[in-house]
């Protein structure tokens, strides 16, 4: 009996396996691209723009390569962790990587990134904005290719600035912003959470006083010195501490990231906000969906990042993504060819319109199509021209984490003690004398 039952089963199983094999062969035969090298592009999360570009450049390569995307974690430090681990382990699947600029030196210094060929450099950086280009360099060499650049603007509610009598066509200072919010009992949209955004804010405040956080970013760990314990460091801490102690960022400031500060700004108590341009597209979308009133959109204005000192131009934060190639990649030449395709100015324009991430190429802003979706495109270009990158050092992660620990919660920041404590904390951590 067992045999009579077993035989048909075995027969069916054999037929099923045969059919599956045949289907597999058929499918692989149909695709016809088994000889085409596959490039893996590790992308940061976006609205699908990088996947579209991968598809587009695959088609444009006419069979020279095929780009497939692989998603990295949501936040920049987690992206760095994953990429650094893989690069250190010699993972050869890292053909193209979307890299956050501050973390590039740490990957470039040990030789984890393939050198950018001269012809790629020539083809891709001819009209790159200065700040974006600086973020792709290490030891005076281009180690990644600028893809898109980001910066922050000062967003304001016109009703508030009018009541305060501020002329927003002229540069405004942090003191003016703070005073206007205090007088009208309104709240400021800043990023007070313990995250990378804290370093972004502090760096912009220090750079806006013509000073850098580090004396020499390229120094060895044991030789690194900071500029925190200076008048500029104290002024930066004073601004952050005042907003914190006066409760000007609302009760939820300790967990307020870019998105939360946008929601605060959109609320009844919103007045000013420093934030990336994504807030415009997000607010517009919320109005179109009926979640927010049209009046709100009409009440929103934008200008350059606030100054610290009224006579010194502000240095807005610089963000964005650069594209690097893994040193262990087996298709480095093809990867750089693909990068040349991806970063074409027209692709950057399209990526800005569809995904809200501003171009790093100057000529990409010339497209008139931008004006309709992003009426502040010129302001963004101007901000990018003045933007200052965060310190380009292999020890950026330690420095940023130490800043986040010392400057949060912002209600505890004191101008007379926090900068000097941060200075000694960073120095001791980098010398291996303390934990972080």
């Amino acid at each position, binding site marked *: 009996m067992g045999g009579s039952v077993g035989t048909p089963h075995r027969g069916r199983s054999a037929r099923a396996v045969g059919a599956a094999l045949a289907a597999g062969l058929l499918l692989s035969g149909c695709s016809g691209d088994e000889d085409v090298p596959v490039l893996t592009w590790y992308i940061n999360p976006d609205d699908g723009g990088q996947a579209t570009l991968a598809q587009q450049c695959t088609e444009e390569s006419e069979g020279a390569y095929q780009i497939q995307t692989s998603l990295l974690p949501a936040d920049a430090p987690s992206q760095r962790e994953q990429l650094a681990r893989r690069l250190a382990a010699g993972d050869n699947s890292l053909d193209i990587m979307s890299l956050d600029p501050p973390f590039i030196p740490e*990957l470039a210094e040990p030789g984890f990134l393939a050198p950018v060929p001269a012809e790629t450099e020539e083809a891709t950086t001819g009209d790159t904005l200065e700040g974006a280009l600086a973020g792709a360099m290490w030891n005076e060499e281009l180690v990644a290719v600028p893809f898109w650049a980001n910066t922050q603007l000062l967003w304001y509610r016109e009703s508030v600035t009018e009541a305060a009598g501020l002329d927003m066509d002229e540069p405004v200072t942090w003191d003016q912003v703070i005073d206007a919010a205090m007088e009208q009992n309104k709240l400021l949209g800043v990023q007070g959470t313990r995250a990378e955004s804290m370093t972004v804010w502090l760096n912009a405040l220090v750079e806006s006083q013509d000073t850098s956080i580090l004396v020499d970013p390229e120094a060895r760990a044991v030789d690194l010195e900071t500029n925190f314990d200076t008048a500029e460091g104290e002024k930066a801490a004073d601004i952050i501490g005042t907003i914190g102690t006066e409760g000007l960022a609302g009760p939820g400031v300790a967990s307020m990231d870019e998105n939360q500060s946008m929601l605060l700004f959109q609320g009844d108590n919103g007045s000013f906000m420093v934030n990336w341009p994504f807030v415009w597209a997000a607010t517009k979308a919320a109005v179109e969906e009926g979640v927010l009133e049209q009046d709100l959109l009409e009440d929103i204005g934008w200008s350059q990042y606030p100054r610290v000192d009224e006579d010194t131009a502000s240095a807005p934060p610089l963000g964005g993504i650069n594209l690097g190639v893994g040193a262990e990649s087996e298709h480095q030449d093809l990867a750089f060819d693909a990068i040349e395709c991806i970063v074409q100015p027209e692709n950057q324009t399209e990526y800005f319109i569809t995904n809200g991430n501003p171009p790093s190429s100057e000529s990409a802003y010339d497209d008139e199509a931008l004006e309709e979706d992003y009426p502040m495109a010129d302001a963004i270009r101007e901000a990018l021209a003045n933007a200052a990158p965060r310190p380009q050092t292999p020890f950026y992660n330690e420095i940023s984490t130490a800043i986040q620990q010392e400057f949060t919660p912002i209600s505890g920041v004191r101008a007379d003690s926090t900068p000097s404590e941060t200075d000694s904390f960073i120095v001791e951590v980098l010398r291996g004398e*303390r934990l972080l």
Partner: protein
Amino acid sequence: MTTAPETSRRQKRENSGSSQPRRGTGKKSNRAKSEARLGWLIAGPAFFIMLSVTAYPIAQAVYDSLFSFRLTAPDDRSFVFLQNYLTIFSDVEVFWQALGVTLFVTVVTVAVELVLGFGLALVMHKALKRIRGALRTAILVPYGIITVVSAFAWYYMFDINSGFVNNWFSWVPGIDSDLDWFANFGTAITIIMASEIWKTTPFIALLLLAGLAQVPDELVEAAKVDGASWRQQMTRVILPNMKAAIMVAVLFRALDAFRIFDNVFIMTNGSANTEVLSLLAYRTSIGRLEIGLGSAVSVILFICVLLICFIAIKFFKVDLASGTDAKGGK
């Protein structure tokens, strides 16, 4: 009335009576040898696999902890012997604080869980047969939820921006829409511990239920006949007879609680002075990519866990084999 010490003595006599003849012969019978061989054949592969997947990483971590080694600076790797440990032990603000918070969370959560778990075990034990299955399932639901998911649920409940707790409980003094639970140590650690307690109390309840089931009914009946009050039955019959189960539950939960990570990582990521040892090890090894220093923190965490085991087994006489056949060989 039969009291616990008497029962215990009787059990000891029974145990020694059954095992003495074997010890006396000094030789194992063929059957015993064959059983021992079978035992090794069955458990041996698992034992060696477990040893290889745990011993190797532990040895590697101990070795790495003696080096100054950063993953992104492989050429700068150097042997520093115990320097990493000196750095860690001399850091009051980070290491000792993290150790203090970890111990605080361990002691408070285990104590609360023990009380609540015992209550739930009693309810499950005494519940009517008709609802017993449903009741046990309901009580075990939190334990079936992945810790990260539970941590997010608690986080979103109390988050000042998206949480409903501030709104629902605004009538409670001290709670209003401006209360940021995760901005201060007191409130943040309370939520972290509450989440931990909610999630793992069923585990303790389950272990205690097994202990309750082992208390012979005749002992309780005899105590009742002798006129013992509920409290006397509890303190002089049930609890003493459950001592082994209670100690096993405490040990297992203490080891688990000492390695707390998910709740802190999700809710505060160590801000508001809520950093714990596991998070410190993670941030140092994975975040900073400082393999040497991070390995040293991990080794210290491992030694702390060993110490808890040692103290529990040696000083509190926890018998991990209690209630199984392993002890008496029966």
